[in-house]
């Protein structure tokens, strides 16, 4: 039996847990508040090999229980937006994104935190999802593989966007992902979702501690859902108002395969509108509240099985060896 040599990856000494990036997604808001309380009570910094930053990303939006004050904070972290001009009258979130980039980044720089875990909720029936920009970031895939949630389905969603174009808060760290839990109305905290998120974050931090201490994580397979396209609501051409709602047969059926001619929408007069694509795809973010204004009724993904190699943290010897071989080159 052939045993693969584990891929050696740099340790992760600094992790950031962020909540309230959208101020009305309350599982993350309340979890971050509790984690900050715990840190205050502990009184001393964790002298161990892991430093955890706990951040309430958007304080003003959180205080008003709104998704954002001026613009969606979680779209402000592309290189272009982070490095563009900032006149005095800039939107609140643009100014805030600079501060967060200074705290957790700079994005792309050596000083950036090693891992960002950004906490979100969705009105869609998605269970627990990891959302990441890469399907080959072994750190994120291994963390996902390690998470065991007894009562909640879990999926790995991949947005195929280059590091340069990536725009969300989690892209500021060297590694990052969003932890999305639904369904939950915005402005509401449901105990089952809060508990799942709390357990999830604990598992993430436990995994990082084990990784940093030199454990080997076996390889395996992860089903990855890669976003392919989005579908908007049918709209009135003049008023732009929606003219149909998500069909009752599709509502709440995130990750159930959608086939050509399956119902998508139901008009207000009762007519069914069907999926006109030729390829069966997996729907998700079905009827997410915040996406009405972004023109998205649902997103569609292809599913494929990704082989994940065994990994372990680089040792000091590994690092010396790689410097030496770089110098030789």
């Amino acid at each position: 039996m052939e045993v693969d040599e584990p891929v050696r990856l740099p340790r992760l000494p600094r992790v950031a847990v962020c909540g309230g990036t959208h101020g009305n997604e309350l599982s993350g808001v309340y979890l971050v508040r509790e984690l900050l309380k715990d840190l205050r009570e502990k009184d001393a910094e964790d002298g161990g090999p892991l430093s955890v930053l706990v951040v309430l990303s958007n304080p003003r939006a959180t205080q008003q229980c709104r998704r954002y004050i001026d613009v969606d904070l979680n779209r402000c972290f592309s290189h272009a937006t982070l490095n563009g001009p900032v006149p005095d009258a800039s939107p609140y979130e643009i100014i805030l994104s600079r501060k967060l980039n200074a705290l957790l980044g700079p994005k792309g720089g050596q000083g950036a935190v090693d891992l960002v875990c950004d906490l979100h909720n969705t009105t869609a029936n998605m269970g627990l999802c990891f959302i990441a920009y890469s399907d080959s970031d072994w750190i994120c895939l291994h963390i996902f593989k390690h998470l065991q949630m007894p009562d909640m389905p879990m999926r790995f969603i991949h947005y195929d966007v280059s590091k340069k174009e990536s725009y969300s808060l989690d892209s500021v760290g060297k590694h990052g992902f969003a932890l999305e839990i639904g369904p939950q109305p915005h402005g509401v905290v449901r105990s089952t979702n809060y508990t799942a998120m709390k357990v999830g974050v604990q598992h993430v931090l436990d995994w990082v501690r084990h990784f940093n201490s030199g454990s080997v994580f076996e390889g395996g397979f992860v089903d990855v859902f890669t976003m392919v396209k989005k579908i908007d609501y049918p709209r009135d051409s003049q008023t732009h108002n929606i003219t149909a709602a998500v069909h009752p047969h599709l509502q709440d059926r995130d990750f159930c395969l959608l086939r050509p001619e399956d119902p998508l929408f139901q008009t207000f007069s009762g007519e069914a509108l069907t999926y006109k694509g030729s390829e069966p795809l997996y729907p998700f973010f079905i009827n997410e509240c915040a996406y009405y204004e972004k023109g998205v009724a649902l997103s569609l993904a292809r599913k494929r099985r990704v082989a994940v190699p065994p990994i372990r943290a680089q040792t000091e010897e590994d690092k010396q060896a790689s410097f030496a071989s770089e110098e030789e080159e």
Partner: protein
Amino acid sequence: TSCEIQKSHKSSRQKKNQKQTHATGGDELPYEVQRAQEINRTFGPKGSPEAYDVIFDLHNTTSNMGCTLILESSKDSFNLQMMNYIKKAFAPASCLVLLNEHPHLKYSTSRSVAKHPVGLEVGPQPQGVLRSNIFQAMRVILKHALDFIELFNEGMEFPSCTVEVFRVLERIDYPRDANGNIIAMVHTNLQDCDWEPLNPGDPMFQTFDGQTVHYQGSGTVYPTFINEAAYYEKQQAFLTTRRETLVASAIRKA
């Protein structure tokens, strides 16, 4: 809580920010107060003979209340007869009646401008989201209500009847700390259990670190509006109610 108002409020706020205008000074009334006065002019004046006969006020809730009719007076026989008609027409699907006649918890609704105010609350639905099943249920109930009014106007007599209602008793707030921050959430056992009996000793809240807070009332109550998003800022985790049977007099168009 109204989906439509929330959306237009959000977009007018966005436009305001884009134009970077400032709110005018203290002389101008809040937008919703201006709207209330316009509504009173159009459909009232409240308390006068010119006021509209009926107003249906359509709402959604994040609570698992199903279809709920909201009644403001136990003595309004016309409304009671209409609600009796709607319940029977909607059966076997459930449509319950919430009576809020509580002197302190009663609030002055837009519908109270009319002689016979009727609230229709359908949930669960997140704010800002349109669910087909919720929309259809609301449409069907409204159709039954309008059918009743048409029958009444054509001269049909409705004999005396009884109507089961849930009468509002009290508002229960979330446990909070000294700064007013919520320190516990609705317990898993209570979440989504609107209209089911809550007995003394039953779990009610759970703190963020996992402790259970139990219901300490003296008797069984029927909670509703459990975990409504809009009521966090109104200091309400849920309302307690008790079941009651009201009698509606016979009615006929004069």
